């Protein structure tokens, strides 16, 4: 298990730079420009309809943390990292099946469940590293321009993306139980993530449809950079992701691995 985990992490080492650097630079840019756009933002926000502000979580934008949340952590970062998570977990399973590597690995005394666990574990570690890199670049940017970003709040904001990404990876494993085509796995889970975001948005805009938010992970995602991490939501989503991954592993164990 540790050998598989280490091998998968070794293969994914570049994603810390290829994903962490752009997300960090973009977030850093958002933080860096906040002092110069703060006044204009206040005026613009005041003119927005209340329902719209509520829907997008921008009731107020009077701090750099709220601005970072609205610009990056509400939509772009969770969707991008969610996509990275499913892409990564799929690379260790359906991607390995497409390249022929799965046949070679399953010639060794390794169970399919262990392969799935290694892929899920490597994805969890990879996502944590990407989020950490993004956070550090953002914090450095704030330091350089004196934007006054609270490191503790920013840490909560970025860390809160992790359970959502794990859920995306777990869903990816479930889809792998049906299809060994990476495009189908990543495409379908990315679609589910977008659908969940839209369901959460619609539920917020129309309170009579609030019930549909219960099926969306974004309902439990919240705004950790402003309110701190909700431990119940954090642990609940993480546990759900692990349970979904375990269900996916059972499906993967039962399926035929066709060439």
């Amino acid at each position: 298990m540790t050998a598989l985990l280490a091998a998968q992490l070794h293969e994914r080492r570049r994603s810390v730079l290829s994903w962490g650097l752009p997300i960090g630079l973009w977030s850093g840019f958002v933080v860096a420009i906040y002092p110069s756009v703060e006044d204009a933002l206040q005026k613009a926000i005041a003119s927005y309809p209340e329902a719209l502000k509520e829907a997008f979580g921008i009731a107020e934008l009077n701090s750099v943390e709220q601005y970072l949340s609205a610009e990056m952590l509400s939509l772009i970062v969770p969707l991008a990292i969610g996509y990275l998570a499913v892409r990564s977990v799929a690379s260790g399973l359906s991607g390995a099946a497409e390249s022929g590597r799965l046949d070679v690995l399953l010639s060794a005394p390794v169970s399919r469940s262990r392969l799935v666990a290694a892929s899920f574990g490597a994805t969890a570690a990879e996502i944590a590293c990407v989020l950490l890199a993004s956070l550090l670049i953002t914090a450095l940017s704030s330091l350089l321009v004196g934007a006054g970003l609270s490191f503790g709040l920013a840490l909560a904001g970025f860390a809160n993306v992790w359970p959502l990404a794990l859920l995306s990876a777990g869903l990816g494993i479930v889809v792998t139980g049906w299809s060994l085509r990476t495009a189908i796995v990543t495409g379908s889970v990315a679609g589910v993530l977008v659908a969940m975001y839209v369901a959460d948005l619609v539920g917020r805009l129309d309170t009579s449809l609030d019930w549909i938010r219960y099926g969306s992970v974004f309902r439990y995602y919240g705004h950790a950079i402003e309110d701190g991490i909700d431990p119940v939501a954090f642990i609940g989503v993480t546990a759900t992701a692990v349970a979904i991954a375990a269900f996916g592993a059972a499906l993967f164990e039962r399926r035929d691995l066709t060439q």
Partner: protein
Amino acid sequence: MPAIETEGLTKLYGAERGIEDVTLMVEPGEVFGFLGPNGAGKTTTIRTLLDLLHPTRGAARIFGLDSRRESVAIRRRLGNLPGDFGYGKHASGREALALLARLRGIDDLARGEELARRFRADLDRPLGRLSRGNRQKVGLILAVFHRPDLLILDEPTSGLDPLMQEEFLALTREERERGCAVFISSHELDEVERVCDRVGIIRGGRLIAVERVEDLLGKTLDRRRVKVEFAQPVDLDDVRAMPGVAAAEFAHPTLEEVFLTYYEEGSG
């Protein structure tokens, strides 16, 4: 205890046939050739033995272990070269070898290095940058380096040049002498004839014959055709003039024989 034993092994893909009622046995120290054209069911049989496909009916036992329930234990004693070997583009053969060694609890890669020298395989270049034949050599090394008790090889010489094909046949004989059972799926009839003890012929998903190679060849022996080698060059007309001879012609060497002659001279 047989290395491989299948009974009524059947794999159906929905309404489509894969293999049906395949019953065979391979003993330790035996080289078994599994013959058939593309699509006959060779790879389906192998993938079912390896628990990559789950049988619709029937059962397979390897060293007495159930291929379905005890597949992890089976794979400790098994080496496998998949058909059309691949391992991704970026990893090198050495990285793949190191990972498989760790998964098998092997620290010493000396045997893998020795095989790499023997097959002139490049373990350091990313596999995606190797030719098909050179990738196949790495696949062979990964299948054999841990000295398995059973080798399952799907089209093992595919892409190998004639020299390496010879080396592969020599390695197969060595593995047999060590007591390893070798199950070779192939449609290269020449190499099967040269190395296999028995062959099974699969057609349309059904095993239609299992025989010793010499018995199979003996059945079709044409007792009118004789290959004779004279000590000195002869005149064909003299041969044709012999009593009972209907026709005679010089035997041309195959291109492969000529090719090997050049390399044997070069190495000497």
